[in-house]
């Protein structure tokens, strides 16, 4: 795959604290642009290879991006589970964009995929109660009206206590 971010001056980054932020931005942009382009999240090894850095440097950047709530990591492997609004694993919120399938973490993130990509989307979801298929559409920058109800079970202050449940 073609690298999707410019090279960063790693020697300088290692000796200048402020450039750690540059590295994190490079990692973030690579992750998000890769998902946008391919629908799949890159692995730690793939990010390290593309950015020509070590696996440990990528793992550390992932942890910093987790603290900024820009990534959620798998507890056992530290690979990407979520790069909100995108999910790296299959969920019950499938977002179709020009024939490509993305997965979102929740109903909010399903519309978030449309907002992030700035594209028309069709969301295939199911009713949380009865499991019946439901759909949402975004067309020309607006959501198509439907009488659906969106329920938040967890108060805002606790969304990140267990973000997978939220």
């Amino acid at each position, binding site marked *: 795959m073609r690298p999707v971010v410019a090279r960063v001056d790693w020697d300088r980054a290692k000796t200048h604290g402020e450039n750690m932020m540059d590295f994190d931005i490079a990692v973030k942009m690579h992750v*998000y642009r890769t998902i946008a382009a391919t629908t799949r999240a890159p692995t730690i090894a793939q990010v390290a290879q593309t950015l020509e850095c070590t696996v440990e440097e990528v793992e550390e950047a992932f942890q910093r991006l987790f603290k900024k709530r820009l990534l959620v990591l798998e507890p056992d492997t530290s690979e990407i589970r979520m790069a909100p609004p995108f999910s790296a694993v299959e969920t019950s919120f499938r977002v179709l964009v020009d024939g490509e399938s993305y997965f979102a973490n929740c109903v909010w993130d399903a519309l978030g995929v449309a907002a*992030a990509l700035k594209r028309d989307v069709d969301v295939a979801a*199911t*009713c*949380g*109660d009865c499991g019946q298929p439901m759909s949402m559409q975004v067309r020309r920058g*607006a959501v198509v009206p439907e009488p*659906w109800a969106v*329920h938040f079970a967890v108060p805002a*202050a606790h969304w990140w206590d267990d973000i997978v449940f939220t």
Partner: protein
Amino acid sequence: MLLFRSEEHVNRWCLDRNLPRRPIINLQQLWQLALAWYENRLTVDSRRPDPDEIDAIFARLGLTDPFWNPRATRIG
């Protein structure tokens, strides 16, 4: 957060799980939240809104119940 066909389905879901019924929003409000959170997510400067910005986003949508307070320690 989950999607439901109607408020009745939300009520049944909560009852079945012995969970309190929490706020419901409509798709238009959800779309505005999606834009506020994610419109710039693929840009270099993207970040999650901070608590003050979250307060302002919810207030703009009329979501002023303590449930939406990102700093709240207790929700009734």
